[in-house]
């Protein structure tokens, strides 16, 4: 019991120190590091918020790109008329509202049907926005008001912090338990008295809030966006990959997966432009083959290995 509390305090202090590091960093590191870290924060937020709903309930959503893209478009359209923080909030809010609609409409769908439905929806939104832009506004792309990199960094850090805190709280509350029981058996959860539909829809919507907000701020990095950039299906697939890669069960795993894969992609892209996809794929396969629970499984494996060593040592 004491050890458990000690552990918790240890991790809390650790996280606090890392936070201080992140906050103090910008003036002392190269501008590119700031850009890279912003990217990493972005992917962590996308992954962790995606996993908020999809990990416990096993309803794998592939619509993340739709909400992320929505945030981007909010920024592109309203960025020059409203202050930055309002735009970000709106990005999150509009995503939230759209997610409520999506959730309501897809209630009857389960499993892979739900997954492919969300994918189809994301693509429908992408093509519809494209159609609208081509025919009604006569343009395809839009310019986004630029914001300097350090501001983006701090805002992303703030969003990351809020996402982690909210996700942690929900996960370790009775709502988190409710979500898990929905994942185990929806019927049983319903019988216990959990309002399954409400839980599903609201949690889904909360998760998309962060995606929308992230989209709104990251749009300022790209300066030019169009529907295929904003609603790129990759933004739907990568969070799933990153969560599985890092370990779907824990927030730490999800965040780790996102950070490692983003860093890896950046490194490979610049050092080995002709082979990076090959290496990326190989690493994905190797990790999942030897650590089927994801990177966090490494901790278990090392523990087991050490225990084995210890036993052998004690036996001699």
């Amino acid at each position, binding site marked *: 019991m004491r050890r458990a509390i000690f552990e918790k305090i240890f991790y809390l202090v650790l996280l606090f120190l890392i936070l201080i590091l992140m906050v103090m960093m910008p003036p002392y590191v190269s501008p590119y*590091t700031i850009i890279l870290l912003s990217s990493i924060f972005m992917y962590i937020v996308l992954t962790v918020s995606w996993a908020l709903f999809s990990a416990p309930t096993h309803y794998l959503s592939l619509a993340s790109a739709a909400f992320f893209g929505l945030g981007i478009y909010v920024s592109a359209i309203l960025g020059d008329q409203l202050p930055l923080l309002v735009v970000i909030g709106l990005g999150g809010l509009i995503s939230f509202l759209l997610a409520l609609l999506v959730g309501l409409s897809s209630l009857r769908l389960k499993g892979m049907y739900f997954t492919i439905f969300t994918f189809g929806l994301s693509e429908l939104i992408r093509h519809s926005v494209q159609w609208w832009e081509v025919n009604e506004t006569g343009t395809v792309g839009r310019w986004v008001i630029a914001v300097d990199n350090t501001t983006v960094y701090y805002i992303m850090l703030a969003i990351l912090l809020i996402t982690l805190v909210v996700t942690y709280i929900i996960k370790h509350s009775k709502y988190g338990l409710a979500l898990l029981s929905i994942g185990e058996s929806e019927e049983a959860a319903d019988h216990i008295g959990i309002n399954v539909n409400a839980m599903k829809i609201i949690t889904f919507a909360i998760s998309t809030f962060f995606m929308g907000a992230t989209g709104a701020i990251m749009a300022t990095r790209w300066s030019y966006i169009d529907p295929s950039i904003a609603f790129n299906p990759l933004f739907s697939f990568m969070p799933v990959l990153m969560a599985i890669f890092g370990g779907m069960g824990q927030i730490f795993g999800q965040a780790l997966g996102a950070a490692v894969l983003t860093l890896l992609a950046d490194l490979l892209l610049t050092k080995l432009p002709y082979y990076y996809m090959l290496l990326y794929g190989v690493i994905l396969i190797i990790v999942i083959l030897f650590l089927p629970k994801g990177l966090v499984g490494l901790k278990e494996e090392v523990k087991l290995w050490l*225990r084995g060593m210890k036993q052998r040592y004690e036996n001699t």
Partner: protein
Amino acid sequence: MNDKVKYFKLIACIILLVFFTTFPFTAFSQTKDKIRIGTAISLSGPYAPGAGMTQIPNYNMWVEEVNAKGGLLIKKLNKRLPVELITYDDKSDIGTAVKLVEKLILEDKVDLLLPPWGTAMHFAIAPVVTKYGYPVMGPTVSSEKLREIAHKVPYFFGILNMPREQGAALADLLEELEVKKVALIYVADAYGIEWTGKVAPDLGLKKMDVVILKSYPLDTKDLSPLLKTIKAAEVDAVLCMSYPNDTFLITKQAKELGLNPKLFYLGVGVAFPVYKQMFGGPNAVEGIMGAGAWNPKVPYPGAKEYFDRHVKRWNQEPDRWGSAFAYASLQILEQAIEKVGSIDRKKIRDCIATQTFPTVIGPVRFEGGFNVQSPGEIGQWQKGEFEIVAAKEKRTAKPIFPKPSWP
């Protein structure tokens, strides 16, 4: 015992993380013994064929030629400095391109930049290169939208022909050939939309009848339904504002369906040397018109020699549009550096903005950031060469009209 190990592992991980994040990004100090030029361009993805045709061979060839001379002449240092080209793959993804350009500028600390391929990519990096003060000339961007923001991106120059002039040239040509009924289809991307936005009204003003005006998605696989509709409409001219993949697709399917209008015009890709081979030889494309025109016969010094050098080096002809413009932009860069006498990017930018430069596409001058030497230019394949048939003053051959039937 296990817990202690666990905590040590954790601390080790954190140290590694910090190290991992900061080490790759420390810039090693550079003594000025060479000039580093960086480019983030599409080596993979849907833009790769275009980039690989129009820009990459020209970039590499130019660097080789410069280094064969000993490098770029830096008068202030009284010597030539060799050039090193750093190429990154932007995967045809805008986000990646922007990030890589920033990496080149901030981390690799390159002296100069060369642009990526395609209108959308240029849009994305124009603000970035202006922010950090790197002059860039775009050989594969053609968009009126750029004119709207040109004043905000003084470090960005467009060297390729623009839709406004191209559209006018095309409309003039059609008028001259007395075309009456037109079908106009376009790819639903920035390029297609803008060009159509310029050409369609021009045609209307000249009292031509645009009976079909339809867009198609960028990654379409099959346009035979649309082409069949066009065939049934029996128009005089078929204009397609298309990108390479659809250009090839449309040509192939039109041939299969026997769609043979009197005037057949397609967009990007017609000017590629592979185009005249891929349908069974130069006869197959006889009479097809396309965007942009340059050929080794143009009366500019160095043009024919450039053509021959390209063939010799890459075993492939340059394309008849962007390639020459890309090479010309490099010539301008070299000349500007010589005139300025150093790698002062601001001075180079000012030089490009105000002077006139002799190149393989003629004497280039930029006004308001745009090349005014090459207004409307349309080409047509005639006996295996892409002749310039518009504007009238620039003609290297008379237009063939009507288009001969498919072999």
